[in-house]
């Protein structure tokens, strides 16, 4: 029985290399040191995770299978780990020691390489890899690996079983396996393929569907604890499968855990810290986690503070756009605007400066900003749309009121656009913005010139985006983003509706104004034909009154439009940008997922090579894996960065929105108030006239 079980584990150990590699991907994926081939690497983290568990809650369940699976008591690996952890702790506490990692990498890789090839080799080396192993996770954790925090945090929460049980089983055994002799392996060589297959099957289902993976892993955990008492083989195989599933699963799980982690870290970290005190082993992830949590929290806080400061600082920069001027003649004519800046910010050369810019310059600025920032999840304020019709009117028409209105409308929206840009703390720092505000001559923005064509391209892009949006089924595990996106979408809908209604109010008000003018004329005529002098006089007074009211309606229509409609139009555009930033986040997520899938494939390929015993190609496969691991890590971090930015940006946007809406609506109501006051004045003047009719 013992022999059998140990044989199994040995086989496992062998077969595990590829398998583990996969499982490890969960850990190593996010590693900076992704070159590290990982089976060894992967183990310790889980061992570390498992330990607190075994120490605190599930000591029995975890230790039992371990004990049963082999004669060698689990103490042995534990013993090995304990001192190691002591060492592992240090680097972590010391901070991020790149050199240490470097040192660590080499032995591990060598150990790893050696293991499959020569079992004998593994024995002496065990000490070193073990050390490195333990050190490394600590290192990794202390290094910028926010991803690990979620894991550990989650493990201290309901998911405990998932993450801790099985890995614990596995890893408590693994050292044994390596420490064990190889004859056993030979003896039970037959069983290994089965196990391998099992594990692989589990692994296959794991990444494919997340929910099933969850279920599976949970179930298997349950079975593990119960079955392990009965039979070692089954227990072992299940455990492996489980760990496999777990590894993959945790992979998927991470993002959502991350979200939780940021929120709940504060609660967990002290707890973890306490654990750290209780047991030496878990101290690594826990403390590093809490440290990371602390730092991330601190970061978040500083961001908040920054933001606050920003909104206060905002008054240091005033931008106004004035003097729209027609430059040139005919179809080559364009409008130039005076952009005046008043600032106390030290980043500018002087306190006040003025430049002349044309519309396409504004578009060019947007293009530049959006190219640089929107992929990072920033909400880049969109400029007003190009209007061929309006501009043509300006170009052709002399001084008709509609073109005047168009120019004023554009001027105002450009001003609002620029103000939004400089209000943005990150965009303000952009050299292009500074250049736009300061530099006398700006290189002509070319790509915007025929924006109708570009617009068409954009439309196509949007269409493909929409398609990919449909095909990408982002397994949104972050409730915050999910809810926000929904909120944004429904708000967009409502704002569009409101915009349409306010627009119709504007046109009805204009219509009313026109009709009032016509009526005023008609009443004047009626008054002139009235042969009662007093009544005739009153009627012409009424005509005058209606004329004034017409003016009032017209002004109000202007206010409806400039104060209310334009605000809504701006925010409909801005909400588009917000959605764009959500899309960027999703794209980045997709990139990460794709990289992960590729990595998975590479690992499977490696496993096959290993099985087929083709060592010549193995190195190449390993290199590829290392490369993809690097990519996965990079993309994952990118995704996290984008997520964090989007979140921050959305919060900022909402604040700004609330402020804007309040300000504008109050302004609008004030305009209404004023016109009512005028109305009262007018009618009060008319009343005696009406009474004077005799």
């Amino acid at each position, binding site marked *: 029985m013992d022999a059998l079980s140990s044989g199994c584990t040995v086989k496992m150990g062998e077969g595990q290399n590829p398998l583990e590699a996969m499982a490890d991907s969960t850990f190593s994926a996010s590693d900076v040191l992704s070159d590290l081939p990982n089976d060894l690497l992967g183990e310790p983290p889980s061992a570390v995770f498992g330990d607190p568990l075994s120490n605190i809650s599930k000591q029995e369940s975890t230790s039992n299978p371990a004990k049963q699976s082999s004669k060698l008591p689990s103490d042995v690996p534990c013993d090995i780990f304990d001192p190691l952890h002591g060492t592992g702790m240090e680097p972590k506490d010391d901070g991020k020691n790149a050199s240490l990692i470097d040192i660590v990498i080499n032995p591990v890789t060598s150990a790893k390489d050696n293991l499959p090839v020569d079992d004998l080799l593994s024995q002496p080396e065990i000490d070193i890899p073990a050390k490195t192993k333990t050190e490394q996770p600590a290192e990794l954790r202390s290094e910028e690996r926010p991803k690990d925090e979620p894991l550990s945090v989650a493990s201290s929460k309901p998911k405990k079983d998932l993450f801790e049980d099985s890995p614990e089983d596995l890893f408590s055994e693994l050292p044994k396996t390596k420490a064990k002799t190889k004859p056993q392996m030979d003896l039970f060589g037959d069983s290994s393929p089965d196990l391998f297959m099992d594990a692989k099957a589990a692994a296959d289902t794991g990444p494919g569907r997340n929910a099933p993976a969850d279920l599976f892993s949970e179930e298997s955990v349950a079975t593990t604890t119960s079955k392990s008492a009965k039979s070692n083989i089954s227990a072992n195989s299940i455990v492996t499968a489980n760990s496999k599933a777990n590894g993959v699963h945790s992979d998927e799980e991470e993002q959502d855990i991350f979200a939780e982690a940021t929120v709940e870290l504060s609660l967990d970290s002290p707890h973890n810290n306490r654990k750290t005190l209780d047991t030496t082993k878990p101290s690594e992830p826990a403390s590093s986690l809490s440290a990371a949590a602390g730092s991330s929290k601190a970061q978040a806080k500083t961001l908040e503070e920054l933001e606050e400061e920003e909104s206060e600082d905002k008054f240091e920069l005033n931008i106004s756009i004035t003097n729209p001027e027609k430059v040139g003649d005919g179809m080559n004519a364009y409008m130039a605007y005076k952009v005046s800046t008043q600032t106390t910010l030290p980043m500018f050369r002087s306190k006040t400066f003025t430049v002349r810019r044309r519309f396409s310059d504004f578009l060019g600025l947007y293009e530049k900003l959006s190219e640089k920032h929107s992929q990072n999840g920033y909400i880049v304020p969109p400029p007003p749309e190009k209007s061929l019709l309006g501009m043509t009117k300006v170009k052709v028409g002399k001084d008709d009121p509609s073109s005047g209105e168009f120019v004023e409308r554009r001027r105002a929206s450009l001003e609002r656009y620029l103000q939004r840009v400089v209000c943005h703390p990150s965009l303000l720092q952009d050299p292009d913005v500074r250049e736009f505000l300061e530099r006398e001559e700006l290189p002509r923005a070319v790509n915007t010139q025929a924006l109708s064509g570009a617009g068409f391209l954009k439309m196509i892009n949007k269409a493909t985006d929409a398609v990919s949006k449909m095909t990408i089924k982002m397994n949104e595990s972050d409730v915050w983003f999910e809810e926000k996106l929904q909120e944004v979408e429904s708000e967009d809908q409502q704002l569009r509706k409101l915009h349409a209604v306010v627009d119709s109010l504007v046109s009805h008000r204009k219509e*009313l104004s026109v009709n009032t003018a016509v009526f005023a004329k008609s009443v004047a005529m009626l008054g002139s034909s009235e042969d009662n002098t007093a009544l005739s006089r009153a009627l012409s007074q009424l005509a005058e009154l209606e004329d004034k009211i017409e003016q009032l309606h017209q002004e109000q229509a202007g206010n409806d439009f400039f104060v209310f409609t334009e605000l809504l139009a701006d925010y409909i555009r801005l909400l588009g940008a917000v959605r764009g930033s959500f899309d960027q986040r999703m794209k980045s997520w997709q990139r990460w997922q794709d990289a992960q899938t590729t990595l998975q494939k590479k690992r499977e390929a490696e496993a096959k090579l290993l099985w087929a015993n083709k060592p010549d190609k193995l190195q190449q496969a390993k290199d590829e894996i290392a490369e993809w691991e690097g990519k996965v890590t990079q993309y994952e971090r990118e995704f996290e960065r984008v997520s964090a930015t989007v979140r921050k940006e959305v919060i900022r946007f909402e604040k700004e929105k609330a402020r804007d809406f309040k300000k504008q609506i109050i302004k609008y109501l004030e305009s209404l108030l004023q016109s009512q006051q005028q109305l009262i004045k007018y009618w009060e003047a008319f*009343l005696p006239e009406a009474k004077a009719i005799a």
Partner: protein
Amino acid sequence: MMQEGLDDGPDFLSEEDRGPRAVNVDLQTDGTLQVDISDALSERDKVKFTVHTKSTLPSFKQNEFSVVRQHEEFIWLHDSFVENEEYAGYIIPPAPPRPDFDASREKLQKLGEGEGSMTKEEFTKMKQELEAEYLAIFKKTVAMHEVFLCRVAAHPVLRKDLNFHVFLEYNQDLSVRGKNKKEKLEDFFKNVVKSADGVLVAGVKDVDDFFEHEKTFLLEYHNRVKDASAKSDRMIRSHKSAADDINRIASTLYTLGTQDSTDVCKFFLKVSELFEKTRKIEARVAADEDLKLADLLKYYLRESQAAKDLLYRRGRALVDYENANKALDKARAKNKDVLQAETTQQICCQKFEKISESAKQELIDFKTRRVAAFRKNLVELAELELKHAKGNLQLLQSCLGVLKGDT
């Protein structure tokens, strides 16, 4: 459902608006004959008016009585006045316009069809609005009919008309029917002939300066009041659309405000509440302008038409008289049928003189009435406008106070 809403009509009528309803005419009521419409009931395709009479005239059996009359019976009464040669010298009070609920009904039906496409709140709101619109039309219809009766009752001659008394007193159906096709066709031809004749007659230079002046005045006045009435209608319609827009803004803001419970949302709710109130006022402004201004103009459009008709009848009589004179001259010259020609000439002369005599008074009365009615309505309009604008102002002020306090 609709029926119930409409049965409320009378209640609505008996409210505050009862007084200023008969605004269009300034009548010297002597108390001997007072007529009003105390109740009205809208059925599927007809409106039943309860005509209530209070009188001390001996020709009535009782002092106070009520009968139920329909629009067709009003028209019958009006036509009987027009056709009566005796009344040729008077401005016949214009007949009330036919109740027209079709547009309103259609809208309500459309609303029913579109029920699925809108939220329950929107639907209820729209329904209430349309019912209010229906009610307003109903109210106006009743007012127009009442004005007609009041005008007749106040007229020194017409009030004594037998048909009128029957109309007021006979408590059975008068069994008048709407005109059939043949009659309508006849009417149409009569109108064509009349207007062609009217042109002829109008071309005749009047001997009397007063009438000549009145003729030019009325022609011009009628056209202008017609124009003003159409323009005021358009103005009020766009005012109503604007009010509707404000209403929709209010409900959209409400939806926006109920999305969650953040600060902005509360803000939106507050603004929505404000708009909900201001749009009611705005709608009232439009309704009052309709009642005080458009209806006044419309009434004087019809009344000036009636005055024009009177002038036409007088002109016709004048032409007849002149023709009779010519015929008499001819007859005298030929010495043939002189007597007959003389009688015709005398009849024509008498008729013309009679018309001229009463017409002069009628036209003077018309002017007095007009001035008084305009005064009354314009003063009321100004007062209502002021009231609404002040209400609006107050709402805006208090809302702004709250909003600014919040931010």
